[in-house]
């Protein structure tokens, strides 16, 4: 059964069709990768799913529900989390606070109880903290717990952003270029984590990525885009050898 589906989604920016009639399904529990040249509309699809942009036409179905018109701040509560290409963390807060903000969509206590920090608020805080500690151990982030994000190296921030998304306890995780700026070793670690996220946590992943090695290592299916349109969709092997993908994206040499 498909967890997420995009039906004929399209968006225009000043007459340019950034995404043009794209349709795809993502099955429960798979890692679905989107590849394509720069400017092909990959990140735009993420921005459509997380409702930062409004669709020009088409619809988005998540968990059997039409989410085309859901306001952007309600997407997380539905169970869709994302990371950003250039890292959008809360840089003047500690790692712990960043992850706790990831728990925001699970906050149930009312304002009054928070303002007075009544026992329900205190208990809820401790419960959130437990969840966050799970993520911290999962990603081996213990030693940075109380460090300001601004003082963390790039590679660690990338992992923190992944962790913040996991704190949402999502059903669907959108990863925007998880390996960009990471070296071989860090990319390998990222591959393991994506694999763990899929197998141990049972989270479905949609990933935009350029590193074909990472793509073929973790993906179940790959979709290739060019000029906002789908040019190939299938197993990593099939897509990588698809003539149009080779011509527009991978190039002759690789």
């Amino acid at each position, binding site marked *: 059964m498909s967890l997420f589906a995009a039906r004929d989604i399209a968006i225009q920016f000043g007459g340019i069709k950034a995404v043009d009639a794209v349709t795809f399904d993502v099955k429960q529990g798979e890692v679905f990768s989107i590849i394509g040249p720069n400017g092909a509309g990959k990140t735009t699809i993420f921005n459509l799913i997380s409702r930062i942009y409004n669709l020009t036409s088409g619809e988005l179905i998540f968990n059997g529900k039409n989410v085309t018109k859901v306001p952007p701040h309600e997407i997380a509560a539905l169970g869709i989390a994302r990371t950003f290409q250039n890292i959008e963390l809360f840089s003047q807060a500690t790692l712990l606070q960043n992850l706790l903000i990831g728990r925001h969509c699970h906050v149930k206590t009312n304002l009054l109880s928070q303002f007075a920090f009544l026992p329900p608020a205190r208990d809820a805080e401790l419960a959130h903290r437990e969840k966050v500690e799970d993520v911290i151990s999962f990603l081996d982030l213990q030693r940075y717990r109380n460090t300001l994000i601004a003082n963390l190296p790039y590679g660690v921030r990338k992992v923190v952003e992944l962790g913040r998304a996991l704190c949402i306890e999502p059903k669907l995780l959108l990863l925007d270029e998880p390996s960009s700026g990471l*070296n071989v070793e860090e990319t390998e670690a990222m*591959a393991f984590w994506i694999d763990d996220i899929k197998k141990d946590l049972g989270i479905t992943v949609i990933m935009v990525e350029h590193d074909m090695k990472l793509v073929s290592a973790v993906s179940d299916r790959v979709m290739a885009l060019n000029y906002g349109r789908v040019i190939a969709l299938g197993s990593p092997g099939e897509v990588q050898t698809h003539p149009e993908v080779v011509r527009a994206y991978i190039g002759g040499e690789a």
Partner: protein
Amino acid sequence: MSVDPILRVSNIETYYGQIQAIRSVSLEVPRGRIVAVLGANGAGKSTILRTVSGLMDPERGSVSFDGKDIVHMAPDLVMRRGMCHVPEGREIFPFLTVSDNLAMGAYTRRDIDGIARDMDVCFSYFPVLRERASQRAGLLSGGEQQMLAISRALMGRPKLLLLDEPSLGLSPILVTQIFNIIRRINQEQGVSILLVEQNAHIALKTADYGYILEVGRIVLQDECRVLLEREDIREFYLGQKDTGVRGARRWKRKKLWRS
């Protein structure tokens, strides 16, 4: 050690606040060659370039460019001496048109004919920029912005080009294209290049000489073809382990005590 390198960096140490980013780094760029600095994230690669071009001040050490000491010189003056830095992350002027961006690259020049000729050369390297010449640079895609940043640097007719992660976030085909052009710039215009890269594979293939940086220190340096043959480089920087990514299950540290 070459006789008259265009750039000689000796024992520089640079701090970000209280954190020491690079520790006593020395390197050289021989005239007309491409030199690559490879290393992990946070190893201080960008800091080296920023220190060399004057964007950051080193705590100690010296940088000599074309025979002159340039340490503590303001970055715009360094550029006027013929060194151009293409910073990481496509630092373009988003609200200027592509051609105005290129014109700003030639800010220090007065020869109008030469500028026009060089603009044509840039367009011949990256034809897509010609199509977009009158568009605002902020509207370009990531790859196009990278092309613009490199072209804009060339407009200043540098003797030495500093390139910071030119492949970051680019599709494989664009990476190949950009590195082909880096080679061409080096061969056709004789520009010396100091390159900092994450993508060790393509950097070692493009460059003549390579330095390996780990936690702010240079640990290895050699001709690139030698580096490419080394077992440890193949394993840690090119990811060519026989086991493959999924081969062996990684040993994962699990913390056992937690309150």
